[in-house]
Every structure is written in C-alpha cells, then in structure tokens.
C-alpha cells in the first residue's frame, strides 16, 4: 500500500533542507572556500608620511580593504593610468568601503607637497612618501623592485618599478594582486571579491 505524502510533510522537508544548507555554509570549513587567503610573506608594517605631512602607518588603513600601488610622479605612462583606475574604483565602490594608497619609490623628488599637488588629479588616492630608509623598508616588505636609472640630458631620471597593485583585506593581509593592463571587468570582479570577503 502506497503512503500518500501530504503537502505539509513536503513543506517541512524543504524547510529542513534550506536550514541545513544555511548552517552548512556558515560553518568555517565551507566558508573558507570563498575566503581569500593571505599571500604569505607579502606586505608588512610601515611608517610613512602622507601628502598632508602627517605620519601614518599600516594600521591607519585597517578596517577596510586597501589597494597599494608603488610609483612616482615623474612616471609618464603606468602611474597616471593606474592612479586614474584606482581613483575610479574608490569613486565607484565608495571611499568608506576601501582605501587606495600610492607609495612613492622616488622619495628624493616626491615630497609630501609634490604628492599633494599631483594627487589633486586623482581623488580618493592617499599618497605616501618617507625617508629613503623608510621607502627602502616598505618596498622590501612588499617585494617591490625599484631601480633608479641614469638621468637624461635634462636631468630627468626614470625609476624601473613593479607596477602591480597589491590588495590587502581589512586586517591588512595582502590577499591578491592586480596586474598592469588587466581587463576592467576582471578588476571589478576582483574588487567585489575583496569587498565581499
């Protein structure tokens, strides 16, 4: 004899399934799959000076994700284009949701004042500079390569440098990098992942 399933029973079963799935996904072991894992050995504590002349540290940027980019103001191509991208990201996603930080690899020319003027064109981006030793220390922590080149006849020199963007989570751990020239859709997707982490 066949048992007839009542609609109430079916509803109860469905409800149980939904609750079970919810509990499962909230468990750490399931959540881990969605979480971005820190890239070990990348990043670290630093103390530098921002474009307003204030002393800041890595702690200043905790509480929300941060995008770090290394460059210099005498850079004609990669730096202005990347800074515009960062500025647009901050504008789009909200400056209360993430920070964008530009760290100079050329502290000799990039004083806080130079950075302040320069960054007027890139709203939402914080500029950091420091003593040569401080810059040396932060580029080492981020595994950034920066090498000053021979000056031209009008005394302008270039600095070869790592052009990737380092993305830190709210706790300050570097969890991903964004390469130069990555497609805008790809970048947006990465930022979403960073924010929903």
């Amino acid at each position: 004899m066949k048992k007839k399933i009542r609609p109430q029973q079916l509803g109860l079963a469905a409800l149980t399934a939904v609750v079970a799935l919810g509990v499962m996904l909230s468990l750490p072991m399931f959540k881990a799959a969605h979480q971005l894992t820190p890239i070990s050995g990348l990043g670290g504590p630093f103390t530098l000076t921002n474009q307003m002349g204030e002393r800041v540290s890595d702690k200043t940027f905790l509480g929300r994700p941060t995008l770090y980019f290394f460059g210099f103001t005498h850079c004609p191509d990669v730096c202005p284009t990347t800074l515009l991208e960062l500025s647009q990201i901050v504008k789009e996603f909200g400056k209360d949701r993430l920070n964008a930080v530009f760290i100079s690899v050329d502290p000799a020319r990039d004083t806080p004042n130079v950075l302040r003027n320069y960054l007027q064109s890139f709203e939402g981006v914080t500029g950091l500079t420091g003593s040569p030793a401080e810059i040396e220390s932060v580029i080492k922590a981020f595994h950034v390569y920066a090498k000053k080149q021979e000056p031209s006849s009008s005394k302008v020199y270039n600095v070869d440098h790592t052009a990737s963007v380092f993305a830190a989570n709210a706790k300050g751990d570097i969890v991903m990098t964004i390469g130069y020239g990555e497609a805008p859709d790809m970048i947006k997707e990465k930022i979403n992942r960073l924010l929903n982490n």
Partner: protein
Amino acid sequence: MLFPLRFTANRRNESKLTKDMDFDMRFSIRWLLAIALFALIAGLTAAAPQLFAKDARQTVVIEQAWSRATPDGARVAAGYLKIKNTGTENDTLLRVTSSASAEAQIHEMSMDNGLMKMRALPTTGLEIKPGETMELKPGGMHIMFMNIGAPLKQDTSVDAVLTFAKAGDVKVKFAVGIVGATSAPQPTH
C-alpha cells in the same frame, strides 16, 4: 609521298598566316605605342607634384597623435601616435623636439612579470619599414616630453616636430586628453 606534300601545303598556309599576323601585329604595336605614350603622359602629370616639388614628407603619414593632461607638478608627459611609412624605402624617426618641453625622447616601455622598465631608444632612432605603421601606445612606446614648462591642459594640444632620416621634419599636434587617459581623445567637432 603524302607527307612532304602535306608539309608544303602546311608551309604555304603558314606563310600566309605569318603575313596576316605581321599585318595585325604592326597594327596592334602602333596601338600599344599610342596607349603607352598616353599612359606615360598621364602618369607623369599625376606624379608631377611628387617628382618636381620634391615634397618628401608625403612618405610619412602621422595619425592620432595624442597626449594626456598632466597632474599638478608633474614634470613629464607621454605622447602617442601612429606613424605610417607610405614610401618605398626604410625611414627612421631620429628625434623629436617640442616647444612644450626642454627635452623629448623616444621611449620604449616594457612589462616583465609585473616590472615596468623604461628606456630611451638609442640615437640610431626608430626604423619604420615601407608600408609599415608603427604605433606608439600606452604600455609600449611613447614620446617622452621631459621637463615640461607648464602642465598640459585637457582639450589643448602640444606642438612637436618629428625629424625623419628621409622624410625630414614633420610637424605634429598632439591632442591632449584627460589625466590618466588610456586612449586618444575623441575629436570634438
């Protein structure tokens, strides 16, 4: 003896044919000469400006020259353009001068595993083969304006002179787009 007879007959026919051909050929050679002469005159007339005016600049065509506005206090700017060699010989971009900057260099940028490197091209310049279009674009080559006298403003232009080994001096106007632009500004009408 059928064969030689036929041979003779053939020969006779042949000679008649040759005579006819001679007549046709003489006729058509005259025509050909007339056409060739006409073509020569027409060609010379068309080519006259290039041949006699010696306007060698026609062998290099510049397209889409642009730069971007510079942030306050920036001392450098990059210029991009397409250079087409429409001539029949290799040509070389030797140098660039601009009233906007103390110095202008031809730079090559390369990305190697996330590392940006930038170098001035050797003084031998940038060679462009006939029929080839050399594109200077973000992430690749650019004209580097160094020690700019004043910030470049959006919707203005930068005047420069490109000196080629064969085409000589070519005047170029770089249209200035937004700060951080990655492509040429759209022309405004």
